[in-house]
């Protein structure tokens, strides 16, 4: 009934269930980039050198950090294989700006309605025929739009459309969703929003 199927119960080796990224071999570049990012996160957690004055302690800290980053990278590559097309960082920056601006709009919108003594709500449902392929991209779209003004994804219809619960159906909700989708599709390296 849902667009995303549960994992196949093959008795042998476990397989990925992400329908989008099955064939993509983890490229060394993506692994290196992620490993560097995770090592940075480790430095953030451990702050080596701040309270370990001696060199052997610092070296041990860094070695453990490298091992931890390697483990995290391995798990990350298996759970979320890198997409065949890399991310577009210009599009990502534009998307971030859009996201932060819309987050503010969403928060102010909800606060205005909550504090208004008349409680101006006009809730309703809307089916949005999402064009991102099922899988990580569509899940990211759902997560992002759940933070956008007036929209909350509640599930998938039989024909694959995402169903949204809207705070106010009089707002141009679908247009906003379309814009979010287009921006997100560019981040993932697709101009038109289809895989």
């Amino acid at each position: 009934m849902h667009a995303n199927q549960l994992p196949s119960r093959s008795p042998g080796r476990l397989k990925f269930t992400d329908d989008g990224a099955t064939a993509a071999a983890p490229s060394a570049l993506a692994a290196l980039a992620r490993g560097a990012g995770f090592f940075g996160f480790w430095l953030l957690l451990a702050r080596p050198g701040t309270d370990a004055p001696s060199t052997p302690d610092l070296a041990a800290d860094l070695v453990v950090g490298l091992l931890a980053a390697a483990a995290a990278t391995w798990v990350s590559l298996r759970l979320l294989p890198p997409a065949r097309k890399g991310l577009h960082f210009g599009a990502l920056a534009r998307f971030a700006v859009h996201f932060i601006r819309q987050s503010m709009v969403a928060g102010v919108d909800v606060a205005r309605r909550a504090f208004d003594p008349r409680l101006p709500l006009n809730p309703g449902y809307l089916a949005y025929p999402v064009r991102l392929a099922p899988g990580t991209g569509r899940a990211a779209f759902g997560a992002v739009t759940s933070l956008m003004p007036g929209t909350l994804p509640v599930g998938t219809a039989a024909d694959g459309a995402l169903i949204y619960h809207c705070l106010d159906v009089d707002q141009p909700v679908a247009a906003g969703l379309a814009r979010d989708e287009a921006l997100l599709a560019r981040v993932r390296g697709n101009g038109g929003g289809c895989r």
Partner: protein
Amino acid sequence: MTSALVVDTALVLLVLGLALWITAARAAYGAAVGFVAYGLLLTIVWVRLAAVDVAMTEAALGSGLTGLLLLGAAARLAPYEAAEYQRRPGLGLRVLVGVLCAALAAGLAAVVLLLPDPAPSQALAVAAHLPATGLGNPVTGVLMAYRAVDTLLESVVLVPALIGVWSLSTEMAWGGRPGFLTPWRSGSALPLLARVLPPFGILVGIHLVWAGADDPGGKFQGAAVLAAMWILVMVAGLREPPRVSDRLMRFLLVIGPLCFIGIGAAGIRLAGAFLAYPEAYAKPLILAIEVGLTISVTAVLGLLLAGPPAPEPQYQRQSRRRS
């Protein structure tokens, strides 16, 4: 009344209110939800009691994993629940039990109020001997050196607990995959979290174990975080739980206790007593045990939540029905 005392009073009132809710709530599911919130409040209490190590354990294990276990059980047992409520004891009996329990609580309260004032404590003894272990966190020192037998028995007892859970399967299900963590019925929201979060959880978990030698943290806290990540991946349907007959997994389950016992037995020869560490190698040996125990405790915690093996055909039928 100082401001700290005001905060503490509010905290205590919240804790007691939630405890009342857990006891009195009509549905077990609501009570289990209350238990999760109760555990998080207790975490703050532990911080107020200057026990950050305990606070971390309470948040990860007492609130998180226990809460997940109870929520899952409440959902499974909901169909049987309606008849239960009618079987409450009568009002007279409830009042009698209430009075007796209040008397017990009053007795304990009196004990708290009458505790001797220069409190007897072994904190100084621990502080005096901590440098010999090379550790900086006294709680880890107590767990690994001062009372290492307790910790050894505790890590060993987790394995029989898991065997106990497994032994509740049916004959035909033996050797199959644990059946409690059937994947969530929808495919969209949870898998994204389960793909993105685990690497960060792994870093946090390893950091907790590694930093636990000198700072708050340790193998149990770190293992609880690692197990939570594993469970998230299983609940999201990205990985199946391993078969209970899997040999590698069984090896990982016992590697920690084996490591502990092996190094402890070597202590008889090298340092003169079971579980004694030769002074020059105390810290590396303790770290080796911690690594082994982290692996084993992670596996045990995750598999305890995953439940007994379920018969494979039923598992497939369920997954088809829910997809």
